[in-house]
C-alpha cells in the first residue's frame, strides 16, 4: 500500500527543523489561549522554541562529530537517496545552523519588548518561527528541490514580515517590491533546476558532485551558472540584483531588519556557495564571482555615504559586507572559505547588534533621520556604547572579531592571485569607517533644536545589545573556538567532498 511507509517506518527530520515546525504550528493555538487570558504567551513560546532549537543544533553537532566521515545523512521512511529528498549535514551545516539559532534566540528576546504595543503579535511570532525553520532547512538539505521548498518557506514568511506595520505606506511598498523580485528569482531557480536535471538526471547534491562537476564550459553550463547566480543572488543582495534591499530593510520592524540582514542574506549566500562548489570546478567561476565581489563592495560602500536615514545606511553597508564574503568564495581555497564563513558569523552578530541598537533609538524617538538625532547619544549611553562596538567591528578595527575575518579574507585573495580584490577591500573598509564615524559623531555631539527628547530603552532591548557587544569583543581577543569550528566547516566543503559523496552513493 502506498501510505504504509509513513506509519510503519516513521518520518525522520533533523531535530531543529522538527522543533521549529511543530512550534510554529502550535503558536496560533497558544495565541488563541493568550488572548482569552490577556497574557502574552506567544512571545515566551517563541523564546522557548528558539532555545530548544539551539539545543537541537548542539545535539546535531554531537552526532556529526561522532559519525565516521563527519557527514550525517537523514532520510525518511526508507527512500532511496539519489532520487528522494534527504538531509545531508556536515560541519558546515552545523556551523550555519548555530549561527542561525544564536541570532534568532537573541532577536526573539529583543522582540518581546519591541512589539509590546503592536497588534497581530501572534501572526508575527508564527511567521518568525517559520522563517527560522525555513533557514534551518536550507542549511541542512542535501537535495536541490528540498532546498527550494524550504527557500519558499523562508521567503513567504519574510515578505509579510517586511510589510508587517501595514498602517504606513512605506512597508507595503517595500514588501511588494521585495516580493516581485524574489518571486522572479524563484522562477529562475526552477529553470536552473530543470536544466541541471536535463543534463545530469538527478537533483541530489552528492550525485551531482560526482558527475556534473568536471563539465567543460559549454553554452549550457554557462546558462546554468547565470540562472543560478540570478536565482540565489536576489536574496543574497548581489549587485545589480540588490535594489529591493535599501527599501526593505529600513521599512521592516527592527527585529526583522536584524534577522534579514543578519542571517537571511547569509543563508542565500550559503546556498549559492554550496551549489556552486558542488556543480562546478572552482576555476570555472573564479573570475565572474571576483568581478561581482568588486562591484558589490564598491557600490554598497559608495552609496552608503550619501544616506541620511540611519537604517538605510546600515542596509547599504550590508551590501558592502556581502561583497567581502564573495571575495572568499571566489578564491576557491579552504583558507578563503574560512574567511567567508567566519565573516558570515561575525557579520550576523555585528550587523544584528547594529540594527537592534538603532531599533532601540527608533523605538524611543520615532524617527530614523540622522539630522534629528544629534545628541541623542548622550541621553542613551548604553545604546551608544553598543553601536560603537558594532561599528568598530564592522569597520574591521583590531580587537574585535571583524578584524580577524577581514584579515583572513584579504590574505586569501592575495594568495589566490586576485590582489586587486585585497586592495579594493582595504580601500572600502577605510571608506566604511567614514560613514560609521559620521553617525557616531552625530549621536555624541551637542543637541540642537531639532533633537527629539529620549530616555534609555527598556532593559530587555539594552540587555540583548550588551550581550552581543561582549561576545564581539571576547571573540576579537580569543577567537580560537569559533575559528576552529569555522575551519572544520570550510574544510568539509572542499576536502570533505569525497566523504560527502560517499555517504550517499
Amino acid at each position, binding site marked *: 500500500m502506498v501510505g504504509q*511507509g509513513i506509519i510503519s517506518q516513521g518520518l525522520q527530520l533533523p531535530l531543529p527543523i522538527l522543533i521549529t515546525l511543530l512550534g510554529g504550528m502550535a503558536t496560533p493555538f497558544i495565541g488563541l489561549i493568550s488572548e482569552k487570558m490577556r497574557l502574552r504567551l506567544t512571545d515566551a513560546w517563541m523564546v522557548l522554541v528558539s532555545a530548544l532549537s539551539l539545543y537541537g543544533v548542539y545535539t546535531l553537532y554531537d552526532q556529526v562529530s561522532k559519525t565516521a566521515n563527519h557527514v550525517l545523512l537523514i532520510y525518511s521512511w526508507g527512500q532511496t537517496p539519489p532520487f528522494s*529528498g534527504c538531509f545531508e549535514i556536515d560541519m558546515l551545516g552545523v556551523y550555519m545552523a548555530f549561527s542561525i539559532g544564536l541570532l534568532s534566540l537573541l532577536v526573539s528576546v529583543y522582540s518581546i519588548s519591541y512589539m509590546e504595543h503592536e*497588534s497581530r503579535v501572534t501572526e508575527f511570532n508564527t*511567521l518568525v518561527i517559520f522563517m527560522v525553520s525555513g533557514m534551518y532547512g536550507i542549511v541542512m538539505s542535501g537535495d536541490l528541490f528540498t532546498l527550494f521548498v*524550504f527557500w519558499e*518557506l523562508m521567503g513567504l514568511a519574510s515578505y509579510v514580515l517586511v510589510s508587517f506595520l501595514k498602517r504606513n505606506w512605506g512597508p507595503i511598498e517595500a514588501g511588494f517590491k521585495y516580493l516581485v523580485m524574489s518571486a522572479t528569482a524563484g522562477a529562475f531557480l526552477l529553470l536552473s533546476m530543470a536544466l541541471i536535471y536535463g543534463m545530469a*538526471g538527478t537533483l541530489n547534491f552528492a550525485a551531482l558532485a560526482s558527475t556534473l562537476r568536471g563539465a567543460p564550459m559549454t553554452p549550457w553550463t554557462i546558462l546554468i551558472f547565470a540562472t543560478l547566480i540570478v536565482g540565489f543572488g536576489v536574496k543574497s543582495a548581489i549587485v545589480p540584483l540588490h535594489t529591493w534591499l535599501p527599501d526593505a530593510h529600513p521599512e521592516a520592524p527592527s527585529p526583522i531588519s536584524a534577522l534579514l540582514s543578519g542571517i537571511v542574506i547569509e543563508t542565500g549566500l550559503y546556498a549559492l556557495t554550496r551549489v556552486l562548489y558542488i556543480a562546478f570546478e572552482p576555476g570555472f567561476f573564479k573570475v565572474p564571482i571576483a568581478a561581482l565581489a568588486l562591484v558589490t563592495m564598491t557600490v554598497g560602500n559608495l552609496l552608503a555615504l550619501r544616506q541620511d536615514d540611519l537604517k538605510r545606511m546600515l542596509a547599504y553597508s550590508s551590501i558592502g559586507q556581502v561583497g567581502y564574503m564573495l571575495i572568499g568564495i571566489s578564491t576557491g581555497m579552504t583558507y578563503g572559505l574560512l574567511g567567508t564563513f567566519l565573516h558570515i558569523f561575525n557579520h550576523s552578530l555585528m550587523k544584528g547588534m547594529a540594527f537592534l541598537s538603532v531599533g532601540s533609538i527608533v523605538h524611543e524617538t520615532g524617527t530614523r533621520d540622522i539630522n534629528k538625532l544629534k545628541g541623542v547619544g548622550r541621553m542613551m549611553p548604553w545604546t551608544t556604547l553598543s553601536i560603537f562596538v558594532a561599528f568598530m567591528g564592522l569597520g574591521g578595527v583590531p580587537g574585535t572579531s571583524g578584524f580577524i575575518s577581514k584579515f583572513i579574507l584579504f590574505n586569501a585573495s592575495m594568495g589566490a592571485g586576485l590582489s586587486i580584490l585585497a586592495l579594493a577591500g582595504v580601500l572600502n573598509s577605510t571608506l566604511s569607517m567614514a560613514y560609521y564615524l559620521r553617525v557616531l559623531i552625530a549621536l555624541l555631539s551637542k543637541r540642537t533644536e531639532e533633537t527629539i527628547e529620549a530616555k534609555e530603552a527598556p532593559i530587555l532591548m539594552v540587555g540583548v545589545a550588551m550581550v552581543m557587544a561582549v561576545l564581539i569583543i571576547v571573540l576579537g581577543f580569543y577567537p580560537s573556538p569559533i575559528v576552529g569550528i569555522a575551519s572544520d566547516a570550510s574544510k568539509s566543503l572542499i576536502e570533505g567532498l569525497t566523504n560527502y559523496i560517499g555517504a550517499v552513493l
Partner: protein
Amino acid sequence: MIPMFFVLGLVLVSAALAVTSKNIIYSVVALLSTNVTLGMAYYMMGAPMVSLFQLAIFAGAVVVFFVITVMLTSGGDMEYDIDPSPLMNKKTQLAISAIAVQIMISASLGLNLDFPYREYASSAIESLSISFGSYDDITTAVSQFLWQVRGMDLIIQSFVILTAVVCTIAMLKMRREDE
C-alpha cells in the same frame, strides 16, 4: 506533431495577449487561456496528473484570486487602463502573436540546439531511472513515486501552505488600533 505545434502556438498567442492587452480584464482572461492550453499540452505530452494540477491550481484558484482582486478594486469599470501606449492596438497585438508563433515553428524545425540530455548521468542513475520507468499506467506510477520517494517534500509543503494562510491573515486583518 502538428497538434502539438497548434497547442503550443495557442499558448504563445495567449501569453502575448495577456502581456499586451490594454484592458485588465482581457489580460486576466488571456492568462486563464494560457493556463488552460498549457494544461492541455501537458496532457498531450503524456503527463495527465500534472495537467490535472495545472488546471485545478493555476487555471482554477489563482485566476479566481486575480479576478476577485481586480474586480474589488478598480476593474469594476471595464474601461480602466493604466498603461496607455499609442502603439498598442489590435493590429500590433496580432502581429506580435503571429511573429511569436512563426519563430517557434521555424526554430523548432530548423534549429539544432544540441542539448546534452543525460550526458552527465552516471550509470547508477540511469539504471535506477529505467527501473522506475517500467509500469503499466502513468498515473499510478506518478502517484506512487510522489508519495514513496518524494513524500518528505510533500509534508514540508503542507507547512508552506499553512505559512501562506497565516501570511494572508496577517496582511488583511483589521483591528481598531490599526486605523
